[in-house]
């Protein structure tokens, strides 16, 4: 076999916020780190995060991490694991300060501290007044954060494999993950990267939907790789639809817009959130606002000739504030809606935004799978962090501002634990040729010639099924049809052919590999969703409109082999404080 091999201590797959934070931690520990990214790191989707990162700093209004924890548990519709949530909310203030020290240009208060804005689902005193917990850098927080982390990694001399696509994980016979097979996109040559520990930080997968706020690179590669390695995907039915995507395009309009005082109106000019969430209004949790918009549209109160959107009004905030605090939003609205939000409301509709589900991990970022004894058993050598992972801190619905926090907290935690793991397992385990050969099949499969369905066509079919059969509102019948259709498509994936077999920078081949991953995620999502006969958080089942804690307060685990669904309990016990037992969720 002529495949080149490189050997590192740690392999980080994905160079978004999670991957870079972990890599920085590892590089600071003087470990030999390789970061593989299919795009140049600053092109990762973290760059598009807008509103901010949550931490109970209490700079603007009184706050403490325990309130943050309460809001997160409640926001998750009680499906979040409370130990992980406690950990995240506790370390948040320290890690945000650390980011500031790294150079993130946060917006400031007059006293020189970080400005904090109100975001959806935030309260003081366990459900009291609106809190202000989200630390922004204008409305380009993700950009500021990702660039800063990349800069710090340059300083720490992390080794980057830019524009390398990870094809599959390599496992040895004892189940250790020993590296990955990657593809140098530029040359078209495969490469084996051997590592003592591997971190998946490949981001979300909302590209399974046609209308999505996600970058075109968000194709669930890590989840696909984990599934093919025989590992489960957890809670895949929970996909967050962000209430405010630009109508017709799906680009995100940050919740920060509503945090700064913007609000939604229907075609009658009515501020309809007054009816759905009398207290929190437009800052209710995202699932609630998205559902409210969807109801407005369904009942014919949408705007525009097709009645397919509502309006987000901001002009009353004044041009100065908009230009200062929301410049990126203004730019986006001008590009895509063609109007200046300082004068005209922005047309918005819900857009697929975030995968709450993903590869199951514990709060150290270790991937856990029910392989031998129990669902919390760590897979040796494998970690996951960020949107591709499911810790689970977001449960059934993520709060705005918690995603950037998630990647920082668990990217760092994973990095720390990986370093510890390497101290105990100081040698690279051998990588067998058979494992490499198996992984190579995933690549060489695309060398097949002849007629067949094109990648673009197949993507189109798949994303339509997901949009039609697995969207904001789900019914038994629609999902049953969705299951049938998506499984058909999964079979037809065999018939998809590439027409371009060139080597150098063959983006068609990359898209084909991505399609494979998307299909894994789509099947997992569809099957997990069809099985859950309750409504919880983002999973809104019309035939079962209520939450069913008796039967469904549990995580879904989906396994690729035989399309098996399994379940495991939610970790209701926090680390040090009292648990928050489930109760009715009103905003």
């Amino acid at each position, binding site marked *: 076999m002529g495949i080149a091999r490189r050997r590192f201590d740690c392999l980080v797959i994905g160079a978004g916020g999670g991957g870079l934070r972990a890599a920085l931690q590892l590089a600071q520990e003087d470990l030999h780190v390789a970061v593989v990214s299919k*795009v*140049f790191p*600053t*092109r*990762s*989707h973290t*760059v*598009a995060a807008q509103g901010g990162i949550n931490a109970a700093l209490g700079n603007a209004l009184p706050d403490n991490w325990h309130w943050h924890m309460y809001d997160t548990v409640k926001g998750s519709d009680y499906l979040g694991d409370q130990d992980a949530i406690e950990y995240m909310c506790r370390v948040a203030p320290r890690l945000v*300060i650390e980011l*500031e*020290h*790294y*150079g993130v*240009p*946060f*917006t*400031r*208060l*007059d006293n*020189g*501290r*970080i400005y904090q804005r109100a975001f959806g689902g935030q309260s003081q005193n366990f459900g009291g007044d609106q809190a202000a917990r989200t630390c922004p*850098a*204008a409305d*380009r927080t993700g*950009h*500021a954060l990702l*660039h*800063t982390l990349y*800069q*710090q990694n*340059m*300083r720490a001399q992390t080794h980057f494999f830019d524009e390398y696509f990870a094809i599959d994980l390599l496992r040895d016979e004892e189940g250790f993950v020993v590296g990955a097979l990657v593809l140098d996109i*530029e040359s078209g040559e495969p490469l084996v990267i051997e590592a003592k520990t591997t971190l998946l930080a490949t981001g979300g997968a909302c590209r399974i939907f046609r209308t999505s706020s996600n*970058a*075109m*690179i968000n194709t669930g590669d890590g989840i696909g790789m984990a599934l093919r390695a025989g590992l489960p995907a957890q809670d895949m039915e929970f996909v967050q639809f962000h209430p405010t995507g630009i109508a*017709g*395009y799906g*680009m*995100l309009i940050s919740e920060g817009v509503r945090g700064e005082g913007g609000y939604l109106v229907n075609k009658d000019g009515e501020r309809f959130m007054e009816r759905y969430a009398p207290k929190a209004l437009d800052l209710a949790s995202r699932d609630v606002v998205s559902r409210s918009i969807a109801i407005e549209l369904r009942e014919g109160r949408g705007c525009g000739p097709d009645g397919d959107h509502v309006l987000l009004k901001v002009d009353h905030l004044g041009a100065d504030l908009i230009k200062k605090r929301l410049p*990126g939003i203004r*730019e*986006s609205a001008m*590009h*895509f809606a*063609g109007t200046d939000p300082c004068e005209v409301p922005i047309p918005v509709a819900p857009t697929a935004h975030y995968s709450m589900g993903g590869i199951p991990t514990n709060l150290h970022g270790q991937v856990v799978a029910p392989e031998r004894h129990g669902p919390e058993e760590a897979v040796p050598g494998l970690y996951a962090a960020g949107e591709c992972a499911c810790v689970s801190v977001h449960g059934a619905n993520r709060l705005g501002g918690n995603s950037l926090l998630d990647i920082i907290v668990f990217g760092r935690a994973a990095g720390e634990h990986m370093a510890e793991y390497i101290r105990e397992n100081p040698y690279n385990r051998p990588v067998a040729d058979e494992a490499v050969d198996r992984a190579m099949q995933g690549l060489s499969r695309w060398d097949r010639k002849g007629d067949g369905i*094109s*990648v*673009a*066509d197949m993507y189109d079919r798949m994303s339509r099924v997901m949009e039609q059969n697995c969207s904001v509102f789900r019914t038994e019948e629609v999902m049953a049809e969705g299951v049938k259709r998506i499984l058909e498509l999964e079979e037809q994936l065999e018939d998809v052919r*590439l027409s*371009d077999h*060139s*080597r*150098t*920078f*063959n*983006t*068609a081949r990359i898209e084909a590999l991505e399609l494979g991953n998307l299909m894994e995620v789509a099947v997992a999502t569809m099957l997990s969703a069809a099985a859950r006969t309750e409504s919880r958080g983002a999973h809104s089942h019309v035939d079962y409109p209520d939450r069913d804690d008796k039967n469904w307060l549990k995580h879904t685990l989906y396994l690729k082999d035989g399309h098996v669904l399994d379940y495991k309990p939610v970790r209701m016990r926090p680390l040090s404080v009292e648990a928050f037992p489930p109760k009715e969720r009103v905003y």
Partner: protein
Amino acid sequence: MSTFRQFSIYRYDPDAGGEPRMQSYRLEIPDGSRELMLLDALGMLKAQDESLAFRRSCREGVCGSDGMNINGRNGLACITPLRSIKDPVTLRPLPGLPVIRDLIVDMTQFYNQYRAVKPWLINHEPEPEIERLQTPAERDQLDGLYECILCGCCSTACPSFWWNPDRFLGPAALLQSWRFLADSRDQATAERLDDLEDPYRLFRCHTIMNCSDVCPKNLNPTKAIGKIKAALMKRVG
């Protein structure tokens, strides 16, 4: 009834051999489709011809992947409305950088320039428990600087970069240099200025302003470079 648009696109595939050439495409725009961006059109062309290669990611103008030369002018395909450009839509790679394939250029040099200005915060003092305090006015100094998306449109529109790509740092890197010089938390001012005072790295800039003219994020590298020069002058006395 649908409309048609004409494209002429720079094609180069090293595997196929031969020289770069321009290829014509005709694209049918279905009626009733929403306002299309150039990147949407490229996606539609790629569905017809898989071999057409270009970079893209966020498709909303924040990641900087799809910088290209559009009808002679650098820009991002994802935020260029198709309506705003004349037929035939002529697409070429960013000027002055080696072409890997079609519209994809090798940006190694551009990234190295970025790296050369040490684009990270340097502060020698012990870390405080809380934030390094910064007033809103001090923070305002970073506006128009930190937003750079590293798309390369500015540097590859700069004649000084064309002629001295290996020695002149180019507008993007210099903008980032000023981003850190202007940061009230950064303490490496002297070192940064020392690094720049050289006939090539900074002073190849002749205030041509092509960079500011093309920046898709409306940033102004020329202004930043001017401020670096002013800081150098001030240091002398």
